[in-house]
C-alpha cells in the first residue's frame, strides 16, 4: 500500500491504518529502536507507541514521507526510553533521585547566554549538515540518526571500515568547531 493510501486511512480514522503502517514500516521502525535500545522488549514497546503517536498526530499532520515521520517518532521514543533506563540503573536509591531533582533548581554552571534552545540547536545542526559533502553527511546521519554500527555503514555504502571511522571522526571535529564558532556551549 502506498504512503498516500495509508495516510488516507489515518485521515478516515480507520484502524487499518495502524495495521498497514506496521506492515509497511514495522521493520524499519523496529530497527531504529533496536539500534538505540538494544532490547527486544523495549524496542517492541517503542514501535507500538509509534503507531499510537502517529494515530494521534495524523490528522492534522499529513507528512510528506511517512517512513521518516514514523522513524522520527520511534527515534524520539527510543531516546526517551534510553534515558529512562539509564536513570533507573543509576537510581539505586532515593537519595540520588532526590539529588537529581535538586540539581534542577541550581543555576547552570555554564554561561546562560551561550545556551541555546533545542530548536535553535536543531537549526544549527541542520545548517551544519547541509553544508557537509553528501557522503560525509550520509555517513553522519546513518551513525547518529539511525545509530547504525560502523561495519553496517561501511557495508551499506561499499566503503572500508576505516574510511567510515575517519569520516565520522572528521565530521565530529567539524561539528565541534562549528558549534563553538556559533557560540553553542552544551
Amino acid at each position: 500500500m502506498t504512503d498516500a493510501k495509508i495516510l488516507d486511512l489515518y485521515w478516515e480514522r480507520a484502524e487499518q491504518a495502524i495495521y498497514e503502517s506496521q506492515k509497511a514500516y514495522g521493520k524499519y521502525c523496529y530497527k531504529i529502536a533496536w539500534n538505540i535500545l538494544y532490547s527486544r522488549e523495549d524496542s517492541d514497546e517503542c514501535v507500538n507507541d509509534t503507531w499510537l503517536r502517529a494515530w494521534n498526530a495524523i490528522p492534522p499532520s499529513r507528512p510528506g514521507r511517512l517512513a521518516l515521520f514514523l522513524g522520527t517518532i520511534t527515534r524520539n521514543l527510543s531516546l526517551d526510553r534510553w534515558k529512562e533506563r539509564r536513570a533507573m540503573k543509576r537510581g539505586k536509591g532515593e537519595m540520588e533521585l532526590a539529588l537529581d531533582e535538586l540539581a534542577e533548581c541550581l543555576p547552570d554552571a555554564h554561561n546562560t547566554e551561550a545556551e541555546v534552545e533545542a530548536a535553535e540547536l536543531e537549526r544549527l545542526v541542520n545548517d551544519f549538515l547541509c553544508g557537509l559533502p553528501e557522503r560525509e553527511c550520509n555517513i553522519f546521519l546513518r551513525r547518529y540518526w539511525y545509530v547504525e554500527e560502523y561495519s553496517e555503514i561501511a557495508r551499506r555504502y561499499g566503503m572500508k571500515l576505516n574510511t567510515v571511522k575517519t569520516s565520522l571522526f572528521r565530521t565530529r571535529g567539524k561539528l565541534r568547531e562549528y558549534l563553538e564558532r556559533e557560540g553553542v556551549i552544551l
Partner: protein
Amino acid sequence: MSENLERDLERNHKRGHKSQEHLDRQEQERAMRLMEALSGVDERLLERCEDRVIKHQKFLWRSTRAVAAVLCLAVVGAVSWGGYRLSNMKMGSADSSGGAAGAPEAGMENAAAPWDGVSGDTAEMDTPGEAAPDGADEEAGQREEQKVTAAGAESGTAADRDGSKPQTEMAGNGTGGFGAQQETEEKEQEEGAAEENGADGAGDSGVTEYESCLPLKSEKRTETQARTEAVLGAYVPELLPKGYAFENAYRVPEDSEANLTICWSRGMDSITLQLTKPANQPQTVDASRAELYDVHLYEIPYGESVPEEYRQTFNNPVFAAEDFDLEIVKSRMKSYDDQGDTDTPRGNFGVLFSDGVLVRFSGRGSAEEIWEMFCSMGGEE
C-alpha cells in the same frame, strides 16, 4: 599514620571516581541533547541518505542484469554462430566444388548485382578445413549444392536463407556479367531437374546427412517461372508493396496437390504467398463474425484473450474470395510493438478462390498495400 594515609587515598580515589562518573554523565547528557537535536534534521537529508542506498543497490542490480544479458547474448551468439558454421561446413563441401550453382542463385536474388551470373570458379567459402575446389568433381558438386538449396527451401524460406543466401553473398566476386542471368537461371533449373532424376553425382556424406532431415524435395523457381506455372502462376501478384523484391520461389513436386510458394523481401520485412489447390477445400470463415478473425479485438497474448473455440480459426483464417475485402485485410494486419522489430503491420490469412485455389498470405505491409497486391492477382478471371 599509614592507616590514615590509606584512608585518605581511598577517600580521594572514591571522590575521583565519583567525579569521573559525574563528568561522564554530564557529557552523556550533552551528547543526548545533540542526539535529540538530530531528530529535527531536514527530511531531505534523511531521504538523501536513504536514496543513496537505493541508488547504490540499483546500480549493483543494473550492472548485474547488464552482465547477465551480455553473457546470455554471448551464449546465444556462440550457439547461433556454431550452428551457422556447422551448416556451412556441411554445405561447404558441395559449394567448394560447385561454385557455379551458387552464382546463378545470386543472379536470382538481385538481377542488378554485378557479380550475377559469375561462372562460380572463384567461389569461396570461409569454412576452415574445407576441400579446395576440384575440377573433376565440379559438375557433381553443382548438383549436390543445388540439391541442398532446393531442399532447404522446402519448408518455407528460413532454411533457404540459412543455407543458400550466405553462399550467395560469399559466392565468387569474379568477373561475371549481368547478361548471363537468364542463362544461369535456366542452367540452375536443368541442374535441379537432373537432381530430381536422381543424378546425385559425387557422394558427400555431409550433404546426404543434411538432406536426410528434409522429407520433401523442392524445385526452385524464378519469379518469371513462377508466373508461368499452370493454374497457380496466375495468382502470383503483379503488384507488391513498395520496395519489395523477389527472394525465392519453389514448388514441391512430390506433393500430390499443385503448390507454389513465393517470397519477396524488403529489408527485415517479407511477404510469403503459399498457393495451393487442395483436394479438400478448407472451411472458410464467416466474414460477418469479426470476433473469429479480427486481431484488433483481442489483446496480446492471444492465447489468453482469444476464446478457445475461436482460436483455430483466429490463428489461420481462410476467407472466401467473394467475402474478401479491404476491411478484412485491415482486420488481420496489425503493427506490433516488438523491440528491435520494424513497426510495419503484419498478419496472415488465406483466401479461397472460386476455382479452388487457396492463397495463404503471411507477411508485412499496410492493409491497403496488401489489398492492392491481392487485387493484382489475375487468377479467377
